[in-house]
C-alpha cells in the first residue's frame, strides 16, 4: 500500500542537523506530519503514545541505540508492525546483518541522497 502523506512519522537521531535533514526531505516528498526524538528511549516513549506509521532512525545514539530501540519495537505487540528504516554511518556488513535479524524494514548508509530515501520509502510502502 503506498505511503499515506498524512502518516505520522518519527525521526530518531541524536544529531539535530540529521533530524532536520530527514524532516526536510520527508516534507519535500509530501510527508508533513513528522515528529522527532533524540534517542531510542525517547523514541519508544513517543511510539507507545500511538499513532505512528513509520520510523526513521539512526543507529549510534546515547541512552538507547537505534538497534536496541528496533528490538524493543519488534518485541512490543502494540507497535511491532511499524516499519523502521535505519539511516546510519554504520556501514559494516555485520551491522546490516544485525539490523536485518532485529527486523529492520530497510537500511540506508550515510551520506545519502533524497532519491535513496524516496526509493526506500517506496519499497517499504509499495
Amino acid at each position, binding site marked *: 500500500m503506498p505511503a499515506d502523506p498524512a502518516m505520522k512519522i518519527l525521526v530518531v537521531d541524536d544529531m*539535530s*542537523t*540529521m533530524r*532536520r*535533514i530527514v524532516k*526536510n526531505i520527508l516534507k519535500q516528498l509530501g510527508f508533513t506530519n513528522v515528529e522527532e526524538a533524540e534517542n531510542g528511549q525517547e523514541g519508544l516513549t513517543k511510539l507507545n503514545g500511538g499513532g505512528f506509521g513509520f520510523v526513521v532512525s539512526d543507529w549510534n545514539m546515547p541512552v538507547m541505540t537505534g538497534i536496541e530501540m528496533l528490538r524493543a519495537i519488534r518485541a512490543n505487540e502494540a507497535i511491532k508492525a511499524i516499519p523502521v528504516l535505519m539511516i546510519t554511518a554504520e556501514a559494516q556488513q555485520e551491522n546490516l546483518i544485525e539490523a536485518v535479524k532485529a527486523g529492520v524494514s530497510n537500511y540506508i548508509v*550515510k*551520506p*545519502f541522497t*533524497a532519491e535513496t530515501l524516496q526509493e526506500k520509502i517506496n519499497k517499504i510502502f509499495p
Partner: protein
Amino acid sequence: MAEANGHLYAELGELARYLDTTLRKLDEAGAPIATMSGQLPQAASHLEGLTKLTEEGTHEVMRLTEELQDSHAVVVGLLHKAAAALGKGENSPCIACLLRESQQLVAQDDKQLIGSRQRLAGTLTQVADTLTKGQSGSCVACALSQSIHSLSQDDKRLIEIMTALSFQDLVAQRVKKLTTIIHDVERKLLELVVVFGLKHEGATPEIKTDATDMLKQLNASNSTAMKQNLVDDILGKFGFN
C-alpha cells in the same frame, strides 16, 4: 661459596644500577607526561567546540535553504494559478499581477541565490509585460511552464544542498570517537603519574612544544576573540569609518 656470593653481589649491583637508571628516566619523563595529561582535557574540549561550531554553521545554511524552499513553494503556487487563469481566458492584467508578485519573490531570493534566479525573474517580467500589453497566447503559457520547470530544478538542487549537509553528522561522530580516545589516553597518563609518583610542581618550567603553542592559540581564540561589532567600535575610536 665466596665465588657464588661475589657473583650474586655483582648481579644485585647490576640490578640496582638498572633500577636507578630507570627511575631517573621516569623522573625525566615525569614533567612531559604531567604536562601532556594537563593538555589533553583542553584538546578534547576544543574538539567538542569544533562539533558545536559546525553544527551551528550547518543549521544556518539549513535555515536559508528552507527559506528558499518555502519561497519557491509560494512562487510555484502563484505561477500555477496564473497558468490556470490563462487557460480559462481570464483577463491579462490579473494574470500579470500574479506574475509580478512571483517575480518579486524570486528577486528577493536573488539576494541569497544568484544565477538561475536572475534568469527566471527576467522571464517572469517579460511574460508579465507581454500580458499587460494585451498579447496573450501559447508563448505565455510556454514561458510559464519553463519558469515552473526552472523552479523545480532549483528545488532539486536545494534538496541536494540539504543532504550534503549530512557531512556535519559524520564529522561529529568522528570527533566524538577522537574525544573518547583522548579521554582514554588522558586517564592512562594520569594512572602513570599516580603509580610512579611523577610530580609536576607549580615551579617546574612549562615544557614548550608545538602543542603548547597551538593550545594557547586555541584558548585565545575562544576566550579573547572579538566579535566584529567590537572590532568596528574600536576601529571607530581610531577614526576608521
